[in-house]
């Protein structure tokens, strides 16, 4: 009973957490209000769908069971690259003006939604492939070549190569997977492989496997991102830039590169969240919009700029949703006074539980406007 409740809370919370993790980095560390975060999740979910169909081809059929794992990496790369492009073209010009960033990213989110509605997924995939090649091909050239005068021509021709590769792969996918060759606004469906469906029994309680999988994805993402931020050289640079941009710049850290990497990782995590979300419901152009409010809620409640806060906030909200929405308090304390039990019954529906949780968060933020774990340090003072 208690275990069941705890598991449910953790399950709901881990969906929130994996969705909010990327935003915690982009919004929390960089201060960018990215309203297109939900759409980056949507791209991740569509990547899962495309990967699933590609793994149904005769050539890859034997590895079909592994497609979810593979699509996690693909989704990270796809959303990450789109995020990097977004940073390079739109957000970079708007640092320091949050209102404009908000409007611009909202516009981008509409563009992305319409893009998946009106472009066949095969050609969409082709476009993303050419973006990936175009962005990363120049970085494999030797530094000697990079310094030469003709490098801009090399760069240009690498983009032509990327475009060609994209068109070719787009056509290849479109001719081999007929479901991807037509544009459709229809919601599509990701079916988990057989080993991920059904339940497992632990300590006498049955747990849905997909939920366990999402919890595992979330755990790995959190551990990986914590290690990256705290142990790697780039993680240290990111933290340095977060704390004091000017000083880091003076000390020779390329803040431009740091921005790109931070934003790319945040967007990539949105893609991973997309994989998780696609296992629960259907995949459609609006799927991201359903999560974006929840993401901001979690990050604000946890305290902007603090990963630990985000983790606590999402599990807190998850457990509260389960406690209120499923009316658990009544079964824990069955003979509570009548007026109280009536109130609890009234809020024990999904719609009302949401109202209740938002109300509780608003009240909480009245007393602690900076969230659960407020950022301390120089940035706060400035």
């Amino acid at each position, binding site marked *: 009973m208690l275990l069941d409740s705890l598991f449910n809370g953790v399950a709901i919370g881990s969906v929130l957490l994996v969705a909010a993790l990327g935003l915690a980095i982009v919004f929390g560390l960089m201060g960018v209000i990215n309203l297109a975060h939900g759409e980056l999740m949507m791209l991740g979910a569509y990547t899962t769908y495309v990967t699933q169909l590609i793994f149904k081809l005769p050539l890859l059929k034997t590895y079909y069971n592994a497609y979810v794992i593979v699509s996690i990496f693909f989704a990270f790369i796809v959303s990450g690259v789109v995020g990097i492009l977004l940073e390079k073209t739109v957000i970079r010009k708007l640092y320091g003006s949050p209102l404009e960033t908000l409007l611009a990213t909202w516009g981008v989110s509409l563009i992305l939604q319409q893009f998946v509605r009106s472009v066949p997924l095969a050609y969409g995939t082709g476009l993303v492939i050419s973006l990936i090649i175009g962005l990363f091909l120049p970085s494999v050239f030797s530094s000697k070549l990079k310094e030469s005068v003709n490098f801009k021509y090399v760069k240009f021709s690498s983009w032509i190569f990327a475009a060609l590769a994209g068109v070719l792969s787009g056509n290849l996918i479109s001719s081999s997977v007929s479901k991807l060759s037509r544009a459709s606004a229809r919601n599509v469906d990701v079916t988990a492989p057989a080993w991920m469906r059904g339940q497992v029994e632990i300590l006498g309680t049955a747990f849905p496997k997909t939920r366990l999988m999402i919890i595992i994805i979330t755990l790995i993402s959190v551990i990986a991102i914590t290690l990256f931020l705290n142990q790697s050289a780039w993680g240290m640079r990111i933290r340095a830039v977060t704390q004091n941009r000017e000083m880091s710049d003076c000390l020779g850290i390329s803040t431009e590169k740091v921005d790109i990497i931070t934003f790319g990782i945040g967007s990539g995590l949105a893609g991973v969240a997309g994989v998780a979300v696609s296992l*629960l419901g259907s995949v459609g152009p609006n799927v991201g919009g359903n999560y974006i409010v929840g993401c901001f809620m979690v990050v604000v409640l946890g305290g902007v700029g603090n990963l630990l806060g985000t983790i606590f906030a999402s599990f807190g909200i998850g457990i509260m949703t389960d406690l209120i929405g499923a009316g658990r308090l009544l079964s824990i304390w069955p003979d509570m006074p009548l007026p109280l039990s009536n109130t609890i019954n009234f809020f024990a529906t*999904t719609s009302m539980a949401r109202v209740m949780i938002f109300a509780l968060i608003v009240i909480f933020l009245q007393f602690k406007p900076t969230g659960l774990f407020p950022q301390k340090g120089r940035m706060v003072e400035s």
Partner: protein
Amino acid sequence: MRISRRILAGLATASLAVSVTSCGGGSDTSGSFDDTVTVGILHSLSGTMAISESTLVDTEKMAIAEINAAGGVTVGGKSYKIDYIVEDGASDWPTFAEKSKKLIDQDGVPVVFGGWTSASRKAMLPVYESKDAFLYYPIQYEAQECSNNIFYTGASPNQQSEPATDFMYKRSPAAGKPFFLVGSDYVFPRTSNTITKEQLKSLGGKVVGEDYLPLGNTEVAPIISKIKKALAPSGGGVIINTLNGDQNVAFFKQIQDAGITPSNGYYVMNYSIAEEEISTIGPEFLEGHYGAWNYMMSIDTPESKKFAADFKALYGSDRVVADPQESAYNMVYLWKQAVEDAGTFENSAVREALVGQTFDAPQGPVEVMPNHHLAQTVRIGLIKPEGGFEILEETDGVVFPQAWNQFEPSSKGYACDWTDPSKGERYKL
């Protein structure tokens, strides 16, 4: 890009060729028409509802093409070719009202075939009533409405939810077990569930829980634990599902993972899942659950098979036909018959001629009743592992429609009859 363009161009010419040949039958006789009559088609071709509503446009076009191929509409000794104007309601309810005005005033159409959501119908209703025009509306709905200017060809609750509840309570594998009601949080599920609760009360059944998911929300974990808590003590039970669109996907994926399956004694009766939705959600999640409709694609009659085959021939072999499409198909034919009987396109005469019209529809014979609804057969189907329904039972003959629900206390004892001026929209039985 070049290759893809070529392929696209090839596809375009191919489909053009197909459509030219398929229209060929109609154009042969086109020379012999005396005149043309233009009707209006008004559904959402963009926005959220486009997925569902565009299938109705396809079906209505098919019915019109069939009628034209068979010589058109004959009114007063003259043969008319049916032409149509398609307008886009854009999934936006005020747009439906605006486009209705345009079709009636500017294009002067004698009839509009249109609508899907109850919200769009409610928006259009005042337009048709004030202009005394006529709307044909093809979707199963919550009733509690009866307009002189709307003709409803979908099921009223006593032609879908009531027989379904009766079946689940008395004859399903979960007969006698408690009920749990799940729906999206808007008017149709709440109205429908109110009716179901009243009906179960009179049957002696028990509703142990009820929950609504806000539109757009797909987190069903709390609902699942409530269902388990409420139904597990009696070893399963019946779940009545009125969720909307893609919320169904999240619901069925997650209840299966949570062990709420037919094999464990939980049976879901669905009111808004037809053949189209089964193939989108995936039959592997729906297998063993139930649905209730007037028309099901698996009806084994020549009319039903021909309807499905014609539709596939016109729009592609991967397409399916479902209840709303059949309703849309019927209403075009019923309008044609009424116009021919009235001998005019003029509204009040057509309205009078419409009541009592019968038609051998793909679902079997249907008849227009004085309350502007259709008497039709009700079927309960079990969802098959490969998709589609296995028809478990169907009513003996037609069920007569009730515009005012007889379980709901506020409308109990009322009925609607437009053929008798003293009765009209709502009179006491």
